[in-house]
Structure formats: structure tokens, C-alpha cells
């Protein structure tokens, strides 16, 4: 076994120098000769019939090469496939790339204008005259579910897209409970706002289509777009160059990807479209968007005996790749970290005249964590129990793993109490509670919020994507002993060029600097799945791990042959191999590599070369967990929230690189806290998106974030050789309920028990003035018999 310090080392991301010096290549940096530019005309209406499109003026404008409306597109490509189907799911038969009949949300594409430069394309787009006959719009799930609601897809005769249930009857648990709590929670819509908006360049040359696209799933885009534009898949290449963030919003196959492919084929010239920020707000999937009803039943000592959950998920106008899959995670994960004997969750997906929803950092698990963590706090409050104590009392005990929840998830491994203890200790919980009482007496409102989460990573989304839950890797040792890794997983900021090199270094004993990691080009790397659900390390990294081990096994056989020793006697130490007990009888790794390619000195019957491809398919998903503690002070005069402390203890299994884990946790907390306090996509009743840009959509600035105090426990997963789980989304999942619970704790003296996010100072100020909570929280406590 190689002994190396590469795994677990604090190695700086090798991606960063090019990112911070502006030398990275994004889609917009790709400029093939003869490039044409595309601007897309989008609907300003949430719901309208297109009566006419007049392109005469636009066609005559300087520089215009082509204008395609919905009919032109339909003649050249098939519709985009609709996301994975849930049983009895109702979806429209076709989902056109460019709308030719009825627009169903603000931002729906109605025409594409191609011109010789970007300004000409945008100016001509303004000259396209579309006559709309506006229709009434429905923007809220509960309104869309009413029997008299207008139906967005008339052929479906309903706005309900699907209904799934998890778990079984909870009636008895509620009938025999000492206390019950009921909450109605709004998961506001969020706009993922990746720093780089979406963009596509398509070039058709020599019978091959190359598509550069800012995506998390280049292989899926290749297969899907090839089918849509009716091109044999082997004549299609997709390149995801540098991707400037995605957070789930680029985990989709979008109409523009197929549209640009079709334009490049038809026009015989390369075409480019890069989304404006306004388009990004209207035309890229949103996150969250749920109305959640949760009831919890408990005995007097705080044991939670029953949970009933109803999730009304806003699908938006169309069910895209993951619109339906994301909210089902909420139902599946609704029991959180707790041993709740009886649980029932139903998830109902509903169409609205809003931008389609999709994955956004956490994708269904933040919503699940929020509902259970709010409910647990509500039970604690109803029974006057300490929020830390009630969590401890209900945790799934370590000996119960693998643990199957009543909603059907099987948690691989976990040990929840040490993470809670560590977080409480780091925060100084007891001292904080004393300080809270002292400050309350002085009219200062300190609040302490706890959130203990468990989530799913190593996600397969097997039904959602061609292939399934695996990931691929090729580890190729070059003749000089340097190593090239080809990975099927395509990052958008995860840092796998660094961590995968660490894995190879650990397994082969070569220096991290002697390993290069190639990704994102479907011509260069084996078919892969993609980057989402914090799966890169656990699944993609494990593929690299196993491929590296197989390379080492072959290298040992070759070394043994060169050393004239049996393979079992050959030991690898760093970059050399020696015979056990005789360190001087050694051969360098690079000499083994050269031998592998020269062939002459290979052991008889050995295939030349030193390269292994492995497709790693984990047996199941893995479940990271942790506890976050947030300490806030609320200014009762202004309603402003100041975050005084933020402690996060995350257990993501084996840690490959603490720097990268910290980076992921920092970014994750920032986004979770943003949902709690700042961000919200707002539609007016006619379906206009009022927050259609960064001036109106409150992405927090660094100065609005607290310092993060991080801790870890390590509970390896049994499902992969690294023991890794994943940490890309944990921060977001833990943070939102921690912050909200902290603010509500601070507001307890005012009798405020519920507020909907984002917790703006105005909402808080009004609640303090009203001297009570908003409607929505009904809690009942049975008197003792």
C-alpha cells in the first residue's frame, strides 16, 4: 500500500490561478471564424396566445442573416424531451424549443434572430413584431389547484402534474399524541444567479457538430440534442469549457442548446448565444418554490411520534429535466435526522405561469430540512423543551445504521450526536443561553438557532438521466510516468482537477503535480453522467480511485517482471517499486511506465499500455449530516438581523482536501443564509417577474455574511472506496433553518412564532409591532391528564 499524504492534504486549488487572472476560457471566449450572433425574442406576457409574428422589419435590418419563429424551428427539430416521468404524471405531449402557439411564462422564447454581430441581432430582435392576445395567468400553486382555476395546458385538463406519497398512516400517532404542532411554510422561489449566465456556441464543420455550452451535464446534452436535431450521436461533440457556477441551474437540457445546434447546421456558419442577466432571471430554471404543510405529533417528553407533510411544488410552466424529481426529494427526506416511527408525506407538482423550476443547491433537501427543523423547534416550544435537547432525544442512534426511514430512504451511516455536541461546544451553547436571558432583561434580543440536517449525495438520479448513478474515469499513465485522468464528471467550480489528482497521487505514489485531470469534452473523455447532488467526489472520485488501483496492480506486475521477483513480493513506495526486504532492488515508476509502452520487456501475455477505464456504480446513495448553530441579534427598533456567530459542524465522510471542503461550506452557507434573509423571486398577480435582475434580487454581499466557524466529524460511507459523502450542498441545507430558528428564538419574547422567508427587517419590524406571529402557525398542547 502506498503511503502518501496527498489525500487529506490542504492543497490549493490548481484551477484558481487561471480563474483569478482572467485566463480561463468560458463559452463566450470561444470565437470560431465567421461567427454569427443570436438574440432571442421572449414573451413579455405570462400567458398569451400568439396571434401573429411579423418579421419583415427585422429581416430588413442591417446584418440580419436569419430569423426563426416557432414554426421554422419545429420544421427542423423535434421537441425537447420532457424530464423523467413519475407514475401517472401529466405532461404536455410536446415541449417546443421556440413557442409557436401559446406562451406560458414571461421569458418564453418566440423567435430567434441571427445577425453578423451581437448589437445587430439585439436591435433586430426589437423590431420583431409579435401580436399577443393576453390570457389570464395563475402564479400560485394553491390558486392553480382550485377546481375553477384556468388550465395552463388545456389538453391535461388540470394543473396538477403529479402526486406521489411516501410512508404510511399517521392517524394513530396523532390521536394519541400529548402535543401536536402545525405549520404552513413558504419555500420562496429563488433565482440561482450563477456568476456566468448560460451560453452556447455551435459549429457544424466537416459533418460534425461541436457544441460549447455552459452545462453541468455535457454527455446528457450530447445524447439529447443529437436526438432533437436528428444528428447521429457520433457526429456530435459537446464541450463544457470553464463553467462559472451552475448551482443546479445548468443541470438541464435547454431549448437554446438544440436551437443553436439546428441554426449552425442550417446556416453552415457557427452561431453564439450568451444569455443576458435579465434572460437568466426569466429563462433559466428557478429553485425551491413550495408551499409546505407540516404537522408533528409528540409525547410529553418530546419524543416525536408522528409526522404528516404535504408539499405543493411549483413546477412552473413546463416540467423540465428535474422539475418533478427535485420536490420528491423533499418528501423522501422529510423525517430528517430523527427516528420518527410514523410518517406520511405527499408531494404534489403543480403547473403555474412562472419560469420552470429545477435543481438549485440542495434540490429538495433544503426544503425537507427546513420543514423538519422548523417543526422540531415548534414542538420544543410547545413543550417548553430546549431545542438542542429535543434533537438529541429524537436522533437516530448510531447503532441503528443502515437505517430505513418510514418514507423509504436508507441512510448508509451516521452518528448525529457528536456533531451536535461539537457544534454546541464550539458555540458555547450554555453560556449563550445565559447571555440571552441577561440581554432580554436589557431589551436586547439574542436568538440561538439550531439545525441538524441529513441529506442525500452521491446522487444517481438514475431515472432522470441516461445511464444512471455511475461515473466514469480513465487513468492513463503516459510513457514518461506522468498521468492523465479523463473524468466523465464535468465540474462547474468543484475543484476536481485538484482532488482527483490527489486521489491518483495517493494510489500511484506519483506527485500531485504529475497528474492532469481532463473533463468536459465528450470527444476526450469517456461517457459520463455529470456534476450535481454533491456526487463528484463520492462517485467520480471513486471511479478515479478504482481505476488508479487497477493501474497500480498492472504496474506492480510489470515491476515484478523487471525485478525478477514474484508480484506479491513487490512493494511500492512513492514513485518506485522494490522487492520486500531489499530496498536496493528497485525500479522507478517512470521506468515501469516506459516498459509498459515499449512492450519488449513485458511479462508474457501482458497487454501493452498502462491505462484503465472504470465505470463506478455505487450500491446506493450516501447521507452526509451535521449540525449548524446560528446566533443572531435582532434590533427591535428596526427589525434588522445581525448574525453574531455561525458555527457549522459537517460530516461529509472522508475529507480529501480541507481547503476545498471549507470553500464549499462557506459558499453553501452564504446561499442558505441568503434564502433565510434576503432572496426571493417575486411575481405579480399577472405573472410579471418583478425581480428580473440584480438590482431587485438581493444576492448578499460579502459584508452581509458572518465569519464562519467550521468543525467536522468523520463518519465514512460504506458505499464507496473513499468513504466520502459530499459537501457541495450541505452548507445551504443546514443554514436556512438555522438562521430562521435563530431569528424566531430572538423574537420569542414578542410572541412571534412564525415568519415566512426572506426575513426582511420590514417583516420582522411589523411582527414585533403586531406583537405576535403571522398567521400560519397553529400549535396545540394537550393538558396533562
Amino acid at each position, binding site marked *: 500500500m502506498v503511503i502518501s499524504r496527498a489525500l487529506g492534504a490542504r492543497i490549493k486549488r490548481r484551477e484558481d490561478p487561471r480563474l483569478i487572472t482572467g485566463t480561463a476560457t468560458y463559452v463566450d471566449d470561444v470565437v470560431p471564424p465567421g461567427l454569427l450572433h443570436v438574440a432571442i425574442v421572449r414573451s*413579455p406576457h405570462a400567458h398569451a396566445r400568439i396571434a401573429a409574428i411579423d418579421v419583415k422589419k427585422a429581416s430588413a435590418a442591417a446584418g440580419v442573416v436569419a430569423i426563426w419563429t416557432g414554426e421554422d424551428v419545429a420544421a427542423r427539430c423535434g421537441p425537447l424531451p420532457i424530464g423523467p416521468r413519475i407514475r401517472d404524471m401529466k405532461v404536455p405531449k410536446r415541449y417546443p424549443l421556440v413557442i409557436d402557439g401559446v406562451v406560458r411564462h414571461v421569458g418564453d422564447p418566440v423567435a430567434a434572430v441571427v445577425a453578423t454581430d451581437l448589437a445587430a441581432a439585439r436591435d433586430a430582435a426589437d423590431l420583431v413584431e409579435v401580436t399577443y392576445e393576453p390570457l389570464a395567468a395563475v402564479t400560485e400553486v394553491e390558486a392553480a389547484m382550485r377546481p375553477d382555476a384556468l388550465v395552463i395546458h388545456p389538453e391535461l385538463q388540470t394543473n396538477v402534474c403529479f402526486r406521489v406519497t411516501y410512508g404510511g398512516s399517521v392517524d394513530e400517532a396523532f390521536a394519541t399524541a400529548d402535543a401536536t404542532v402545525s405549520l404552513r411554510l413558504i419555500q420562496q422561489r429563488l433565482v440561482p444567479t450563477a456568476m456566468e449566465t448560460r451560453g452556447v456556441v455551435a459549429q457544424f464543420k466537416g459533418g460534425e457538430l461541436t457544441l460549447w455550452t455552459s452545462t453541468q451535464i455535457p454527455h446528457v446534452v450530447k445524447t439529447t440534442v443529437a436526438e432533437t436535431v436528428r444528428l447521429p450521436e457520433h457526429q456530435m461533440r459537446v464541450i463544457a469549457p470553464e463553467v462559472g457556477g451552475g448551482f443546479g441551474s445548468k443541470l438541464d437540457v435547454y431549448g437554446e442548446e438544440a436551437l443553436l445546434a439546428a441554426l449552425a447546421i442550417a446556416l453552415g456558419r457557427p452561431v453564439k448565444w450568451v444569455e443576458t442577466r435579465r434572460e437568466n*432571471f426569466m429563462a433559466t430554471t428557478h429553485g425551491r418554490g413550495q408551499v409546505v404543510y407540516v404537522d408533528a405529533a409528540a409525547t410529553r417528553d418530546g419524543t416525536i411520534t408522528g409526522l404528516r407533510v404535504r408539499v405543493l411544488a411549483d413546477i412552473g410552466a413546463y416540467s423540465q429535466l428535474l422539475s418533478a424529481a427535485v420536490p420528491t426529494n423533499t418528501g423522501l427526506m422529510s423525517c430528517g435526522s430523527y427516528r420518527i416511527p410514523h410518517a406520511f408525506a405527499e408531494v404534489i407538482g403543480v403547473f403555474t405561469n412562472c419560469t420552470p423550476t429545477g435543481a438549485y443547491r440542495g434540490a429538495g433537501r433544503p426544503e425537507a430540512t427546513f420543514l423538519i427543523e422548523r417543526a422540531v423547534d415548534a414542538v420544543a416550544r410547545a413543550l417548553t423543551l430546549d431545542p438542542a435537547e429535543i434533537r438529541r432525544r429524537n436522533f437516530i442512534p448510531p447503532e441503528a445504521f443502515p437505517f430505513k426511514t418510514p418514507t423509504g430512504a436508507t441512510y448508509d451511516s451516521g452518528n448525529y450526536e457528536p456533531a451536535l455536541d461539537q457544534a454546541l461546544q464550539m458555540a458555547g451553547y450554555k453560556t449563550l443561553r445565559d447571555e440571552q436571558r441577561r440581554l432580554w432583561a436589557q431589551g436586547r434580543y439574542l436568538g440561538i438557532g439550531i439545525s441538524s440536517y441529513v441529506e442525500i449525495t452521491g446522487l444517481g438520479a438514475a431515472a432522470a438521466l441516461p445511464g444512471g448513478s455511475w461515473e466514469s474515469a480513465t487513468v492513463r499513465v503516459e510513457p514518461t510516468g506522468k498521468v492523465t485522468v479523463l473524468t466523465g464528471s464535468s465540474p462547474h467550480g468543484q475543484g476536481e482537477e485538484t482532488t482527483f489528482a490527489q486521489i491518483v497521487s495517493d494510489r500511484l505514489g506519483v506527485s500531485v503535480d504529475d497528474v492532469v485531470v481532463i473533463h468536459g469534452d465528450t470527444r476526450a473523455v469517456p461517457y459520463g453522467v455529470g456534476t450535481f447532488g454533491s456526487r463528484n467526489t463520492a462517485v467520480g472520485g471513486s471511479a478515479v480511485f478504482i481505476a488508479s488501483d487497477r493501474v497500480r496492480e498492472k504496474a506492480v506486475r510489470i515491476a515484478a517482471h523487471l525485478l525478477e521477483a514474484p508480484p506479491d513480493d513487490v512493494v511500492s513506495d512513492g514513485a518506485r517499486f522494490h522487492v520486500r526486504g531489499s530496498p536496493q532492488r528497485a525500479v522507478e515508476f517512470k521506468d515501469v511506465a516506459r516498459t509498459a509502452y515499449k512492450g519488449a520487456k513485458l511479462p508474457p501475455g501482458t497487454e501493452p499500455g498502462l491505462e484503465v477505464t472504470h465505470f463506478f456504480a455505487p450500491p446506493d446513495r450516501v447521507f452526509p449530516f451535521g449540525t449548524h448553530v446560528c446566533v443572531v441579534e435582532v434590533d427591535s427598533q428596526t427589525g434588522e438581523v445581525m448574525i453574531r456567530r455561525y458555527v457549522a459542524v459537517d460530516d461529509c465522510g472522508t475529507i480529501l482536501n480541507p481547503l476545498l471542503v471549507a470553500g464549499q461550506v462557506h459558499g453553501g452557507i452564504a446561499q442558505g443564509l441568503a434564502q433565510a434573509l434576503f432572496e426571493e423571486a417575486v411575481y*405579480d398577480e399577472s405573472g410579471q417577474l418583478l425581480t*428580473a435582475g440584480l438590482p*431587485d434580487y438581493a444576492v448578499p454581499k460579502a459584508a452581509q455574511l458572518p465569519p464562519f466557524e467550521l468543525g467536522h466529524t468523520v463518519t465514512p460511507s460504506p458505499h464507496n472506496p473513499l468513504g466520502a459523502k459530499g459537501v457541495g450542498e450541505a452548507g445551504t441545507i443546514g443554514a436556512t433553518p438555522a438562521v430562521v430558528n435563530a431569528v424566531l428564538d430572538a423574537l420569542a419574547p414578542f410572541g412571534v412564532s412564525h415568519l415566512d422567508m426572506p426575513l426582511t427587517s420590514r417583516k420582522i419590524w411589523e411582527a414585533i409591532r403586531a406583537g405576535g406571529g403571522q398567521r400560519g402557525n397553529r400549535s396545540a398542547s394537550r393538558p396533562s391528564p
Partner: protein
Amino acid sequence: MKVEGTYTLPAPRQRVWELLNDPAVLARATPGVKELQPQGNDVFKAIIELGIGPVKGTYAGQVSIADKVAPQHMRLIVEGGGKPGTIKASGELRLEEQDGRTVIAYSGDAQITGLIASVGHRLIGGVAKQMAAEFFKALERELTR
């Protein structure tokens, strides 16, 4: 988006009513109107230039007058579209005579789309109020022409 208010003009109701029904007066008094061409039946083709905060644009559409009850009531309907989006506004004017003066009570509502909605929505209420005030001031000037 709703606006309402009152404005008092120093003229009898019949005189004010005549002004309101004179296309030339409407063209001069309505802020931003670049063109107003009668199409018959109280319908006018209009080109209006309008700035709502940072959202500036030219809107082509029509202005029509409906529900006329001389000399006390009318409804003004403005529909237009341009680069920044579309506007559909409807305003009700009630005229009452008090001691030889005319009190106009107005109330209006508008549906907006596009950039006007997403960027201009915070400002449009104020802009509408200001435009109403400018309109009535201009009408007052017309009295002395």
C-alpha cells in the same frame, strides 16, 4: 398599479368637457404624446414617449374614449407597446361642477409587462401620478388659450 386623485379647474363643467373631447387638446395636454391621429369613433392612433425611471421608450398604440356620459363621465383607455414592454391602462374621469369650477375625480389602473414591469414597477405609480398632474395643469393652460 392604481392611481387616483382630484383636480379642480377654474371653468364650468361644459367647457372642461369640450376640452377633453378635443383631439388637438388631448394631443397637446397628454404628457409624452408625439402623435395622435383620429381614427373615428373616439379612437386615436398614438405614439407616446415615456420615461419610467431608467426605462425610457417610445410606445405605439391607441387611445380611446369610452363610456361617455356628457358632460360628467368618460373612460380613457390607453394601450401601447414598445421596446421596454407593453402598457394597458384605463382611467375613469368624473366631472362635478362646484360654484362655477369643475372638480375632476380620476382613478386609473394599468397592466404592464416587460422591462417596465420588472425594472419600472417601483416607480410607475409615482410616474402615473405625476403624469396625471401634468395633464390637468396643461388642461388648465388650455382654458386660457
